[in-house]
């Protein structure tokens, strides 16, 4: 049997008409059912077409038939109008099994049985309570699409319109609850005057609660959901803002740049920044060696458009000595950027138990360390002097034509 995905029209006609293929509207759009045939399959066809239990359809025909033979006439009319076979593209709606009616009958039966055996609180209590229970269950019952109140609530918040059957159920349930409450109050008017009023108010309150309960629950859920969504969209906005300020700007600059070295350094500095943002250099790392040297490398890259290949092994807390070391390393990188004409420079930092070592190396043009003019104080003062003031050593290895390497070594006996 062909099964097309179907939506129960009794719960939401609005959606059903949307998804229904227009081709089924040709002709009367009715067919004689092959599988649910009693006489000619008209009731079965109607059932398949509209998703109503065939028993109801047949009962209606019978009832209408008793009412002046109209049902018989209608049946015959439809018989002549209907297609012999179900059109291949027709949407078959399966009738929802009426568990609720079955359950209702069983409960009713048990209650009557209990009543006859004498286990009973009295007609004045049981029947109203049963009515209220039935009414609230009609309202509360949740179908696939979330029940009557949900649709009513979403209509109130300006979403889709509530389903007609939903409103019917809401009204029916409300009437049942009100009737139950009313009967109870009327039946218990024999109660003492003051106590009776209080009970009446409490009972009425309970009834109103039963009617409004689902709606309030729904409202609370909606509020939570809205708050979550607001938080999510705020986060997304933050990410978008950051990407715009950083990555998108850099990409734009790269497109406008005609120097490949400038492009590389832009890309590298952006990469560094994005990594720091993604993997979070949090506050407690601010006083550690690794982020400090990453910062040194980043500053050089930005200022001189010179890519710095940084490798750090080990980590430690920053003290004055380490700060001096990083300042000396910055100076060494700066020299490489200014004088070496190298394309990249690499910096290697290693923290060992006994000392911290930094190597700054380039493959640039190099120089003769003995032939530095006296006015160049960079290496002597900023590197050698700074290192020796903090108990360290700076070694410069360079030869014209084969690059430069500066080694900075700092003992760390006090820093353990």
């Amino acid at each position, binding site marked *: 049997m062909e099964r097309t995905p179907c939506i129960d029209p009794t719960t939401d006609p609005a959606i059903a008409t949307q998804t229904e293929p227009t081709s089924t509207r040709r002709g009367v759009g009715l067919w004689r059912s092959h599988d649910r045939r009693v006489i000619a399959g008209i009731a079965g066809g109607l059932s398949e077409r509209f998703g109503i239990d065939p028993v109801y359809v047949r009962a209606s025909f019978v009832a209408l038939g008793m009412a002046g033979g109209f049902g018989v006439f209608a049946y015959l009319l439809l018989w002549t109008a209907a297609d012999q076979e179900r059109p291949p593209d027709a949407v078959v709606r399966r009738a929802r099994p009426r568990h609720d009616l079955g359950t209702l009958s069983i409960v009713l039966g048990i209650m009557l049985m209990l009543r006859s055996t004498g286990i009973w609180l009295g007609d004045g209590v049981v029947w109203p309570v049963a009515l209220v229970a039935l009414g609230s269950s009609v309202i509360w019952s949740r179908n696939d699409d979330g029940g009557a109140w949900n649709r009513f609530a979403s209509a109130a918040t300006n979403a889709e319109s509530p389903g007609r059957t939903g409103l019917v159920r809401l009204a029916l349930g409300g009437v049942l609850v009100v009737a139950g409450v009313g009967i109870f109050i009327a039946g218990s008017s024999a109660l003492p005057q003051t106590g009776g009023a209080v009970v009446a108010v409490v009972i009425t309150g309970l009834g109103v609660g039963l009617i409004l309960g689902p709606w309030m629950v729904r409202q609370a859920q909606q509020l939570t959901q809205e708050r979550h969504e607001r938080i999510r969209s705020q986060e997304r906005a933050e990410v978008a803002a950051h990407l715009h300020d950083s990555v998108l700007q850099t990409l734009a600059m790269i497109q406008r740049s005609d120097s490949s070295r400038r492009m590389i350094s832009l890309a*590298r500095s952006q990469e560094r920044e994005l*990594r720091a943002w993604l*993997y979070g250099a949090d506050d407690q790392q601010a006083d550690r060696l690794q982020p400090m040297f990453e910062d040194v490398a980043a500053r050089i890259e930005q200022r001189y458009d010179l890519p710095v*290949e940084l*490798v*750090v*092994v*080990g980590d430690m807390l920053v003290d004055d000595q380490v700060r001096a070391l990083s300042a000396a390393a910055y100076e060494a990188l700066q020299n490489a950027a200014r004088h070496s004409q190298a394309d990249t420079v*690499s910096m*290697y930092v*290693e923290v*060992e*138990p006994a000392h911290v070592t930094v*190597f700054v*190396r380039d493959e640039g043009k190099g120089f003769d360390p003995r032939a530095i003019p006296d006015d160049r104080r960079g290496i002597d003062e900023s590197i050698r002097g700074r290192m020796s003031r903090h108990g360290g050593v700076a070694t410069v290895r360079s030869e014209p034509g084969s690059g430069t*390497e500066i080694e900075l070594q700092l003992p760390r006996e006090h820093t353990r």
Partner: protein
Amino acid sequence: MIRVFLVDDHRLFLSGVKSELRVGFEVVGTASDVDTAISGIRRTRPDVVLLDVHMPGGGGRTVIEAISEERPETQFLALSVSDAAEDVIAIVRAGARGYVTKSISPAELTDAIRRVHDGDAVFSPRLAGFVLDAFASDAIQPVDPELDQLTNREREVLRHIARGFTYKVIAQRLHISVKTVETHVSAVLRKLQLSNRHELTRWATDRRLV
């Protein structure tokens, strides 16, 4: 002609590398997720697989684990934009012959593929840094020192790689042959792959990686 298979989930990067390998290599296939990578490698039987560390469906490590037993002659070179040491160490321990970062120049990349194909290990400065970190000397809790600890020479070689020297220059500076440098690097790689000692675990735990 070295037959290369490329695995990367970034198509832009994939096509870039593919065009860089036009001369002297034959790119026999590409894949951008773990499953197609495994089936593609089985089908094309490449010499070298260039492998991204992070991919949908398990990452490069899964590919190595699936292939290396049935085809031990296939070499893997990890190629990653990842800065995270644990990714890199994990993929090398799974059996990759080397690791290079994606910022590597085309010339260095082709050189790395050739070296991996010849059976050598290829360490980028970054990987050398990670390995030194993993075997950090102040983390010594010897369980099996003969097997796991790096020798001074190996440490020295790694340090030079981390400082950005080529194997050739390292050989000159340490007065050894390039072949010896490669032997040391291979030994480090083997120790890294064999190493199951506490250091790596502790190292990872310290960094909240496991």
